[in-house]
């Protein structure tokens, strides 16, 4: 007979109740923090280039590849805020939300915040890819790195949430 490890409120006494996995696999916090920190570095570089006029960009300028063109376009800001800075805040927030302790937490708010942030990030990435391809007509390699990292982070967070089960009310 299976042994019950956890009996939630309302469970039938004596009947073992299988529970969702209590914590995510080890690779989840490790990879999500690593991706977030890498994103912070790249977004930090793009932010620095944004505020220094993109005068020292380590990026080729030929044909479709043109970082300066992308990062100095009107699509490089949203409501006056540089997209690169938004990216920096995004990855910093995700780095905190993806710490092992945060993954262990079952607080619904924390889980929702992490999933919402990752989803918002990937939606913004889709918009920026559209802008690069159809409005700016140039691709920025550093921005592409950010796009890949954001989609990777979204993948990790989404899969981890699926493995981790639905949110429950926090019980102290």
């Amino acid at each position, binding site marked *: *007979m299976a042994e019950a490890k956890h009996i939630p409120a309302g469970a039938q006494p004596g*009947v073992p109740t299988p*529970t969702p996995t209590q914590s995510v696999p080890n690779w989840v916090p490790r990879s999500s923090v690593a991706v977030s920190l890498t994103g912070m570095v790249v977004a930090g570089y793009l932010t620095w280039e944004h505020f220094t006029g*993109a005068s020292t960009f380590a990026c080729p300028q030929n*044909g479709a590849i043109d970082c*300066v*063109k992308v990062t100095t376009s009107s699509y*490089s800001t949203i409501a006056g805020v540089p997209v690169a800075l938004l990216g920096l805040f995004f990855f910093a927030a995700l780095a905190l939300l993806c710490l092992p302790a945060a993954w262990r937490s079952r607080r619904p708010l924390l889980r929702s915040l992490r999933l919402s942030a990752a989803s918002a990030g990937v939606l913004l990435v889709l918009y920026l890819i559209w802008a690069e391809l159809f409005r700016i007509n140039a691709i920025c390699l550093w921005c592409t790195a950010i796009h890949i990292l954001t989609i990777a982070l*979204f993948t990790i967070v989404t899969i981890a949430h699926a493995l981790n*089960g639905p949110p429950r009310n926090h019980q102290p």
Partner: protein
Amino acid sequence: MTNSSKSNDATREKVAQMRAAQVRADRRRRIVIAVSAVGAIVVLVAVLVIAKLAGIGTPAKTAAGSSAASAAVTSALSHVPPTALDAVGTGSANNPPTVITSPALKQGGKPRVLYIGAEYCPYCAAQRWAVAQALSRFGTWTGLGQTTSSASDIDPNTATLSFHGATLTSRYVSFTGVETTTNQPAGTGYQPLDTPTAAEAALMQTYDGPPYLPSASAGGIPFLDIGGAYVSSGASYDPQLLAGKTHQQIADALKNPANPIAQAIDGAANAITAAICKTTNNQPAAVCAAPGVTAAASTPSHG
């Protein structure tokens, strides 16, 4: 163990198995949803890339006698290697923008570049290449047209672009392009196209001639007002240079600093870029500090 307790154990076991199965099913469903969400994102990115490669979404708003500029021409024009522009410097271009003292010309809080020309005009045909290339360093073109100058004027059928319906998306400057006629004859002139506003016509009336520009070019087109700080009238090189060339040949020539077309167009573009930089407080620095631009900025008319 009694029969009753055995029966209870069996029931509990069965319930536990059912719950375990339900938990596994729920987990499988969540994983399927998560993988689907990730897959949808990847598919969306792929669709965007494929649509771009297929040329979907390229705007086309052109006048009679014009067509949308090909993606290859627009790309070649907008992506001239900075090394080529720097190597050309002032090149063989003449007639750089002249510094003036007048109220700042702005739109949306940004310096405004006003171009007034016409599609039939061969001098406009020559100058548009330089204007379009210079502005591409500050933003992105959409809706550029592709046309030729009049078949019956001097330097006939000069391959060029058209600013009719074109939009420059830029953080640094705003652009207004006015093409007053097409290249299609109508009566004693050409078919009308864009009409300058009263304010735009007044700017041309005031600054397209003495004391700002030589009397020889008074009222001439193309007229260019760069942020109220610089004006120019006419072309910066002889349109004859482009005779017999296709749009693609001209655009492709811009990346070769030794090519006479690049010497003329890139040189003129550097001079226009230098003038625009004066109105944007030398932003973006990557453009305004480029050696080709600083070389052009030192020409006499740049003051």
